[in-house]
Structures are given as C-alpha cells and as structure tokens.
C-alpha cells in the first residue's frame, strides 16, 4: 500500500498564510500554496476520519527541573504591509535604538512571565514557541492584531491612537495565540466574542500580575494608554463597566453591553465580536470580585482551565459559562464557594445555568 508523506511544513501552515502567499507571493509561491492547500485539505479529511471523538488534548503544563525561558524576536515592519519585516532584536540582544522595539521586547517578556508564573504555560503554544512581534506595521495604522503566527502593531495615526504597545494590548494579542493553541474559537458571533473576551480577560490580568494588584485594586481597563489627544475616553474597553470606556464624537460611544438583555445582533465586526464580549468580560470581573484577592489565583485559574478543556470552537456563551462552572466544580468541589460564585456571576449577566 502506498503511503503519502506530506511535507510537515505544509501541514503546519495555517490557511490564512496560504491565502496570503497566493495573494502576495510570486507565481512559484502561488503554485506551491495551491498545492499545499489541496494536500492539507486531503490530510485534514484523513485526520478527521481517523481521530476519535474528544481526541483534543489540553496544552501541557510545565514539569521537570529545567525552567522554561522566553524566546522573543521583534521585527521592524518599515511601515509596509509585508510581514514580518526586518529582525531588529532577538532574544538576548542588547537594546535597540528604537524605543518601540525595546518596549515590545520587554512587555512580551512580561506576558510570557504571566503565563508561566500563573498557569505554568510555556509560551503561546505551551511548548516554548518563539514570540514574534512586528512593530511599525503599515502607515498610520490604527490597529494591533494576531495573524495566526505572530503579533503585529501599528504606530497609530497620532491623533486618535498614539500607540498600541500597551501591556494590556500585548497581553490581549498574545492571548489570541493562546486560544488558538488551546483548541481555538471560531472568530465569529458568540464564539468570536468569547475569543475576544478571553483575550481581554488575560490582557487585564497580565497588567494586574505585573503590578501585583488585587481584583479590587485594579482598574480593569484594556488599552488605557493607547488613545491619542483627540479622544474623549479612558480606555478601549472596561471589564468593570462595559459600555462606559469612551464616548467620543469621532469614535462614537463604547458599544459593549454588560447583560444578555442588551446583546447586540449585528453582521458587522464578525457578528459583534468586540461588542458582545462585554458580557463574558463582565461575568469574569464579577467573579473575580466575589472571589477576592489576586484575579489569577482563582478566577483566572477557572477561566484558563476551562479554555484548556472546552474543545468546542463554536462554543456559545452558555457553553462557555457551563464549562467554567464545571471547571470550578472540578477544581474546588461541588457546592464550593468558587463554584457558586461562578454561577452567580453568569446569572448576573443574564446567563442562567
């Protein structure tokens, strides 16, 4: 019997990378991408047919005597579209002359420390993956994103946005990678909003961990330092008060709801992924307040372990809420204070279990 041995690189390449190669590469690369895509489809079908149900395994946690070390690479995008750009600072290199490069280098280290210290997770994939960042992406680009394999930061236009290299934003973007390597959540509708919410929750926890703030001391803001001088608002989002982070005549009003009664049905923003994430965000905030102390010690553990076990890329808010309550039960016991408070937090945002 003939066996195919697909090139392992082909199997690793995510679909959007192939799309980018097809779109932006030369003819040879386009053909390679098309061939890879066909092969990947075939391999995926074979894998799905062979895999038993619930075959998903959570990300391994650290064990053994050797402490994991961070590996970072920061690139300069040169205000162009192409990624990753020119490597400016690799792990262990002396500081660059570019302050943004150094800031991202330092802050990605803090996010690595947070995941390792609080959750024993070795980098984005749990296996020591190199943390790649590109700064100075595009011209006056008002965005930061995770593209499936690296983080990308624009410089902002200087008026509405002055920078995207805020610790909560870097924690947010890197957490999209954690979601991806924890089974993933489709970036659309409620599962997309859960993806955004997980990134927000772990983004604010990164800040709290770095400054050793308790749940009651923290401000629970995402993107506190990114707005430029022309914006009326304190941050991009607030987990404490969704809908009240900003109100500006150019950006409009923060559209986040805090309760299911205010859920926004929309086709834009991938089905309101940045809007309805306010609901699970607020549930986490409430739970962290009830449980007290440092958010990553109990509330964060419940959220993190629930993500490792979820195994449902199309999860709804109710699925996720159910998983967090189940996880609290597993971790702290049936009828425990932690489990009851997790359920109560969900009830207060309109999700009854």
């Amino acid at each position: 019997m003939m066996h195919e041995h697909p090139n392992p690189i082909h199997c690793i390449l995510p679909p959007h990378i192939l799309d980018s190669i097809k779109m932006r590469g030369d003819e040879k690369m386009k053909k390679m991408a098309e061939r890879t895509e066909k092969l990947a489809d075939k391999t995926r079908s074979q894998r799905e047919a062979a895999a038993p149900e619930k075959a998903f395994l959570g990300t391994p946690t650290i064990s053994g005597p050797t402490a994991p070390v961070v590996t970072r690479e920061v690139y300069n995008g040169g205000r162009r579209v192409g990624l990753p750009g020119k490597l400016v600072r690799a792990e262990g290199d002396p500081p660059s002359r570019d302050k943004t490069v150094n800031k991202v280098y330092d802050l990605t280290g803090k996010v690595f420390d947070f995941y390792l210290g609080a959750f024993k997770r070795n980098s984005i994939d749990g296996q020591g993956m190199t943390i790649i960042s590109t700064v100075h992406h595009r011209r006056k680009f008002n965005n930061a994103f995770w593209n499936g394999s690296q983080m990308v930061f624009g410089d902002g236009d200087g008026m509405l946005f002055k920078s995207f290299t805020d610790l909560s934003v870097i924690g947010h973007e890197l957490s999209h990678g954690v979601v991806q390597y924890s089974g993933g959540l489709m970036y659309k509708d409620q599962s997309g909003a859960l993806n955004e919410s997980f990134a927000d929750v772990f983004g604010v926890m990164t800040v709290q961990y770095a400054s050793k703030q308790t749940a009651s001391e923290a401000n629970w803001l995402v993107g506190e330092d990114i707005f430029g001088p022309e914006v009326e608002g304190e941050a991009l989002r607030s987990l404490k008060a969704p809908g009240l982070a900003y109100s500006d005549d150019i950006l409009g009003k923060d559209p986040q709801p805090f309760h299911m009664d205010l859920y926004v049905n929309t086709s834009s923003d991938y089905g309101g992924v940045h809007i309805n994430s306010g609901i699970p965000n607020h549930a986490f905030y409430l739970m962290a307040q009830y449980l007290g102390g440092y958010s990553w010690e109990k509330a964060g553990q419940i959220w993190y372990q629930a993500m490792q076990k979820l195994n449902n890329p199309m999860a709804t808010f109710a699925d996720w809420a159910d998983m967090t309550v189940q996880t609290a039960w597993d971790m702290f016991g049936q009828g425990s204070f932690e489990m009851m408070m997790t359920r109560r937090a969900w009830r207060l945002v309109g999700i009854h279990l």
Partner: protein
Amino acid sequence: MKENEKRPTQLFMRTTGGMGVTLEGSVDIESLPDDLARQVEANLTPTKLSRVARRKTALYMPGQQEYEITIPAGAQKSPKRYAFTDQQADPELLDILDELTSIIIQEKIRARRARQQQQEAMQAETEQMALEEEHAPLETPPAMPIFGQKENEEPPVVNDSTKS
C-alpha cells in the same frame, strides 16, 4: 478601469473590526492630492473591488480590519458596496486605505475643531451680552400713553376741584 465604468467622484468608507472601533466617513476624490487621487481612481474601481471582495479568506486572524467601500452610482442606480478584510486586500490597496483613513480622521478632527470654535464664539458672545446687560445704565421707561390719548397730544388736564 473598464471604458463603461464612470469615474466616481466620491466614496464612503467604513472600517470595523480591528481593535473594535468603528470609523466611517466620505472622501471627495477630487479634493485628494493628485497622486493619491490617481491611485484611488486606479485601484478603487468596481471591477477591482469586487475581485478583492470575492477572494477567499482564512478562518482565523483575530483583530484584522474589515473595510466597506460604498461607491455612489448615479441618481437612477443604487450605490455599490464592497466589503473585504485586511487579508483579502493587496498591499497597494491597503496603503491607499490607510491614507484615506488618515484623511477621514483629519477631516473629522478639523470639523470638530470648527464646531468647538463656533460654540466658543457663541458662548463668548452670550457672555459679552450678559456682561453688557449687567453694566448698562438703568433707563427711564417711556411714559405709558393714557387710554384714549392721541399721539402727540398733551395729556388732558385733570380738574382737581380740591385745589381751588
């Protein structure tokens, strides 16, 4: 551009996704710098935009931006709307969209400053009027005409018999 495609003079642009902030505004193509106007005319045509919008997208790229470009199509036709993401667009198109976004933001900020100046001017005028009113000398109110008295007529002499 195809020969039968009329050059648009204006377009409407809306950006969503990204960090979750929506930004929208219209762009008057004729008022753009020449070089940018040429690039817009060459790249933001219905043919090219519909090709971009049809491109297959990947499933996972959290935080990428979505663009909606609406091009008016004359009085009798409905406007054409094209929606696509960062991943679907060519680098050249993304450069143009970044420039247009920046122009929309600058225009909005200019409009806001103009509104603020107008409000400040009105506020200053109101305060000035209040100040003037406060310091104006008290005027003797004009004498009220007596009922039945004609204009320019001396008031009638009241015959007070008690004085005699």
